[in-house]
């Protein structure tokens, strides 16, 4: 092998390897959670139409929708924010607000 030539493939950080998740930034979690919750909402809506009387199912659907919504609101706010440095605080605040909303709705809704 000639000297100085790259000897092998670059190390990857593919998301299917557990190593990708060490030192994962908060924004990565937000991104992945939003994708996962999107798929979950589609599945849960289907199940919900099928067995609409299940309260645990309704609350799970509600929680998933709220999570997906607050993460989407975070993206929109960051689209217009003057500084992206607020992203971590924003994530915590919005997920917290979502949790409060969920608790409130779970208390109100039958």
């Amino acid at each position, binding site marked *: 092998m000639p000297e100085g030539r790259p000897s092998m493939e670059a190390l*990857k*950080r593919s998301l299917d390897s557990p*190593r990708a998740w060490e030192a994962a*930034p908060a924004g990565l979690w937000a991104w992945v959670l939003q994708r996962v919750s999107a798929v979950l909402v589609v599945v849960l809506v289907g199940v919900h139409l099928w067995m609409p*009387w299940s309260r645990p199912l309704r609350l799970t659907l509600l929680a998933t929708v709220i999570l997906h919504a607050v993460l989407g609101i975070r993206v929109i706010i960051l689209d217009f924010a003057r500084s*992206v*440095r607020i992203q971590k605080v924003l994530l915590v605040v919005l997920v917290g607000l979502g949790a409060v909303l969920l608790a409130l709705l779970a208390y109100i809704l039958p």
Partner: protein
Amino acid sequence: MADAITFEIFRTAEDGRTRFDRFPVPREGPVTVLDGLAWIQRTLDPTLAFRYACRVGMCGTCALVIDGREGWACRTRLRDLDRPVIRIEPLRHFPIVRDLAVDMAPFFERYMAAGGAFVPRSEASMPAAPVPAAERKEIDPFVECISCGMCYSACRMVALSPPFLGPAALNRAFTLARDGRDALGPARVTALLGEEALWRCHFHFACVEVCPKHIDPAQAIQRLRQEAVGRALGMAPTSPPAALPARRGFLIGAGAAVALLAAGAWMFFRQTSASPGWSEAIDLPPIRPGAPVAVQYAVLADGERISRRAFLVTDERGQVVALSGRCTHQGCPVFWKAATQTFLCPCHGGIYDRSGKVLSGPPPRPLVRLETRIDGGRLRLRGEEG
């Protein structure tokens, strides 16, 4: 704290295989990770390869992945690493030359692909061109990049989509796109509209978190995107002083959306206050004790003829009562399920017993009991609102 710390170092072999070698490094003596690597090379294994130049946190050459996170070896102190073993790997997404040394060439190819070179305006004849203060104020936080490659290594989108130009190159492009002395101007932003440039970023903010110079490459990407969208919508490019209209536009849009939602909610929850009187008379259906009978009837409300459904059931005392066929939750039509002897609402699973009492689900009240009147052998109903 133990008096030695173990370096677990990524190594390569001639045959292309990789391994991790462990070296004990004394905590007395070496101060930084870079000192530790140099100590290993001097005393334990002279074949260990790693890159460095300035040793004082200026050049970024010694960038590594230390315990899964990008950092520079010369600025990472051993006394801050209170773990017995630290794992040291080369930067990710770079071809590895040997051990911890990586080839930076593909990284700089991306700089060029992102239009990383300054193109002077031809009319610039002055030896020094004065630069507007506002312009510099916007660009200055982004020009401190030392091309260490940490952001490119940390970016998961580079991992998922290798052709992605990555944070550093796009950050560089931003500093040039906003530079009034540059000749390319808007063409720079248009050139970056491809899938593997501005739109591949998903804002994990890994670049922001690892940048040793505390630059926000994600912010640079965001500004370029705002400009790109602005141009597509036929608006002037949005630099921060001019960014206010965009934000005002957003606020107006958000306000309009909220108003629209409120109006919709009001329409939805508004109940027609006019209380309809008795319904048109209908023929009395045959009543069988036990099985509710569905009847269709019509009322006039606000001059409109509205068709309704009700159930005639016999109560405990043998009296015939009329129950509204609308679920008290959201007004969906309920139906009688003979197998379970219950009324069932298909919308949200409300269940009522034969007398209209709520057994399960979201309905807040029992089914509405309607007033009945026999009028010339025919039935009239009254009592349901809305």
